């Protein structure tokens, strides 16, 4: 994890967000005030549980209904994301990979089919070499024919990572990607994620409350603050004036 530089210097901006928010519960808003990432950069959303880290990732992924905020901006890979933008335009497998906290896999597909699904849905053919590399790296080589119900939670989590990375996405969103792993395996899998994301050239946003140690311990954090204003609570994430980490 070296080569730090300011994301604002990056010529190849992957993600650009300003004033993107949602009312998560009555009177409680989660807002991304500013977030900009270039190819290969990584930022961690680190906040206490319930602060809205997963919600922030959902906002970035364009998967949540937005609250109307002034001067709103949401760009993924140069595509302006609005509620009317077809997801395929900004969230295809080569643009956005998302490792869900729930590690949801399709129960009636094999592990290999699950990994290939986003690419297949996009009407593309997986890069066989890269796919084989991912599956080997994630230690799933002997499990590809199994259904999710025949896998451990940790194996499902690794399969989710492989699924998100198969399309070599410009932007990789990770929601507590190692939360279900044995502590002994956390460092190894985190290292793999960092390594494979770097190989894919992905910018990474990691939501985690357990990244104080391990591979992401030194990765820059987005600012997080809580604000009470006129009876409303705001949980605000921002990278304004901060540097993201450039993955070597």
């Amino acid at each position, binding site marked *: 994890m070296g080569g730090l530089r300011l994301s604002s210097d990056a010529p190849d901006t992957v993600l650009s967000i300003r004033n993107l928010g949602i009312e998560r519960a009555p009177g409680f808003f989660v807002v991304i005030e500013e977030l900009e990432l270039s190819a290969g950069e990584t930022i961690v959303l680190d906040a206490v549980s319930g602060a809205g880290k997963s919600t922030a990732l959902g906002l970035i992924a364009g*998967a949540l209904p937005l609250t109307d905020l002034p001067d709103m901006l949401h760009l993924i890979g140069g595509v302006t994301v609005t509620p009317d933008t077809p997801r395929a335009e900004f969230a*295809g497998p080569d643009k956005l990979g998302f490792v869900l906290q729930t590690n949801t896999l399709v129960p*009636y597909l094999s592990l290999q089919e699950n990994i290939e699904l986003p690419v297949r849905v*996009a009407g593309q053919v997986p890069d066989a070499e890269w796919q084989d590399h991912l599956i080997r790296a994630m230690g799933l080589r002997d499990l590809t024919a199994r*259904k999710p119900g025949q896998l451990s939670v940790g194996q499902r989590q690794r399969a989710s990572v492989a699924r998100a990375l198969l399309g070599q996405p410009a932007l990789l969103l990770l*929601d507590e990607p190692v939360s279900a792993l044995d502590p002994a395996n956390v460092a190894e899998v985190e290292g793999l994620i960092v390594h494979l994301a770097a190989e894919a050239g992905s910018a990474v946003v990691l939501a985690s409350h357990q990244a104080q140690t391990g591979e992401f311990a030194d990765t820059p954090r987005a600012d997080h603050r809580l604000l009470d204003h006129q009876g409303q609570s705001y949980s605000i994430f921002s990278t304004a004036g901060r540097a993201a980490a450039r993955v070597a």
Partner: protein
Amino acid sequence: MVRIPAMLALRELRHDWQSAMCFVAALAGVLGPLLIILALKNGIIGTMVGRLIEDPSNREILAIGAEQHDAAFFAALGARQDVGFIVPATRSINTSANAVRHEAQRKLERAVPLIPSAAGDPLIDGEAVAPGRVWVSDKLAQDLSVSAGDTVDMIVGREVDGQRENARRDLQVIGVLPPEIWPRPAIFLSLPDLLAVERFRDDLTSNPANWTDPVAEPETYASFRLYARSLEDIGTLSAHLAEQGLQSRPRAENAALLLSFRRNLNILFTAIAALAMFGFWAAMSANLRGMVERQRIIFSLFSMLTMPDRQRCVIPVVQSLALVLGGVIATLIIILPFLMAINATFETAPGESVARLYAGDVFATLVLGAVTAVTAAIWAVFAVRNVEPQEVLTHA
């Protein structure tokens, strides 16, 4: 692009095969009795009542008494849309031969009815009669041991001054009417041949040497053989004859009853089928909607993975079609032996059966099932469209 969603739909059914089998069984439970009723309706109405209805004999309107019908009468009647066939006939006293003999077999049948025929006779399926060329009924053919191609000798008698006098004529048999068409002994012959018989009996200038010589057509005929175009036409045709002051009666007095029976049974079956199909449709609709609910998170995941709405909506439609197809196949596998057992239990005439299912019925069931499947999936399709990508992020 429906390949991926269709594959997902079928894989999900295979994965959750127990639920799918339950649904197929439920469909067979509705469809099975329905197809059995349809088969019984086909068997009883289609072959038994249907045979009575389709039997051309039942379309005959019998003239009562002797009248004087001229050429204009026959032309006018023949031009009517409700008339299927008409041919003039002589007085009934002259419509029999004293005897018919098959010399080669040394067999003779007395008092054989003679029935005028012509091209278009609804009872004759083949070459039309002509002078000297006749059809005989199956009963007469058996009694005389004749078949098509044989020649029989018709004998017509009269008494002149107390002396018995017979005239003979060779008739070539060109066909035999099946027993279900005409069960009694009879010869179907041309009008000139019948007129020759009448003339021999009524006209002393006609003698055994010249009785079959061609003569001028009479100005009037005493009777006629008349068939309505269809059973439904009998009523209007009978009414027309009554308006003309002619007495007649339909050969099949219960034709109207048969028609009404068939119509009512069709209505009854259609009503039962409609009710059953509606019940099935509602059950299917609710089941598919339930399947979407059970797979809600997966549909949300598909959306998150950029699968367009139109592709996601293909999934319940394909599942619905597959379940209906499975249900129809399962139903046929179950009921076909059952129908065979019914037919083996109840004795019927050769070629007939109590329960009968046609390929068209199965095809119609598949088409109706497909329509039901697609329409029943509408609720599920709307439900799928309402599944948002965010749901996979937030579910516990």
